[in-house]
């Protein structure tokens, strides 16, 4: 049987970090998840990472050239731990031996606002 959904007052407060990743090889959502988790576990440790409620919501591929692949995405985290998560993803620098960099584009309270303000999907 499925658990009953918590009332809004008892749910954790969330924030959505819109990010952009530039890499030498194309990345997908399955690559981003371990990158973010590993960076956070290495920098903050297991105990502190457990407070973050990290979740990679969605990833969109953006402009790409031969040497530069850009993706944009949204990361869910706990409202009080936004700066710790930002600090962790700042330290991502390698994926399978190739260089990669994560930049935070902005913070929003909803996914919809994040997409509208920061991801700016091309129609």
């Amino acid at each position, binding site marked *: 049987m499925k658990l009953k959904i918590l009332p809004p007052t008892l749910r954790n407060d969330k924030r959505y970090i819109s990010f952009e990743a530039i890499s030498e090889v194309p990345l997908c959502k399955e690559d981003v998840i371990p990158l973010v988790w590993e960076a956070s576990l*290495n920098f903050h440790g297991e105990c502190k990472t457990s407070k973050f409620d990290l979740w990679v919501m969605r990833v969109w591929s953006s402009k790409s050239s031969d040497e530069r692949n850009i993706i944009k995405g949204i990361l869910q985290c706990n409202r009080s731990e936004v700066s710790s998560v*930002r*600090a962790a993803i700042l*330290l991502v620098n390698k994926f399978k031996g190739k260089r990669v*960099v994560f930049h*935070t584009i902005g913070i929003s309270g909803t996914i919809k606002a994040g997409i509208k303000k920061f991801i700016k999907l091309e129609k």
Partner: protein
Amino acid sequence: MFFDFHVHNSQLAEEAKRLGYNGIALIQSSRNYNKPDDINPQDDFSIWTGVEIYAKNPDDLRKKVQKFRERSDVVIVNGGDIKINRAACEDPRVDILAHPYKNRRDSGINHVLAKEASQNNVAIELSINPMIKTRLSLRAKILSQFRQILKLQRKFKFPLIITSNAYSLYDLRTPEDIIAFAGCLEMTHDEIISSLSKNPADIIKRSRIRKNVIVQGARTIEQGD
């Protein structure tokens, strides 16, 4: 206004501007220095030139500082050796002492050097690059060295500067991300803002009036100053 005073590649200016910086200093090594001429001045983005001095000993350092001071806006000394660290902190012509903790177990700065750096306005650099490039125990060691420098900075009030030491676009980070990262080092918001904004601006201000300085504390004033 955010500045990054340790960028090695002129092609990074565009990327730095996109990430939210208001100016960068393009740093060349003293080993193969030639004044860059492909700098395009922009309205809302400043590019300064600088030199990173690699010295064998304090005498060599003084000679090189003398040689490069007039030619560049920012003079950075590559630290690590304790004698070089000391000579750099004692020289008011030096703007920044870069990574004094390099290849050391301690932070490379003690109370004597901290006092000298404070008197001579030599900024001590905390570089993001070694943090990005290292992992686990080595990164923890560098973080501990950063904390030692911060502890001395709070007592002796020497200028602190946070830079990227970037060679490629994969080394650059946004100023907001750096603020979040520095917050994890228990730096206060004011300390972070002065390291990214006020202290670099002061270096440029001093560099502009330096040619008018006759002796320490006295300078010629031009009409309209």
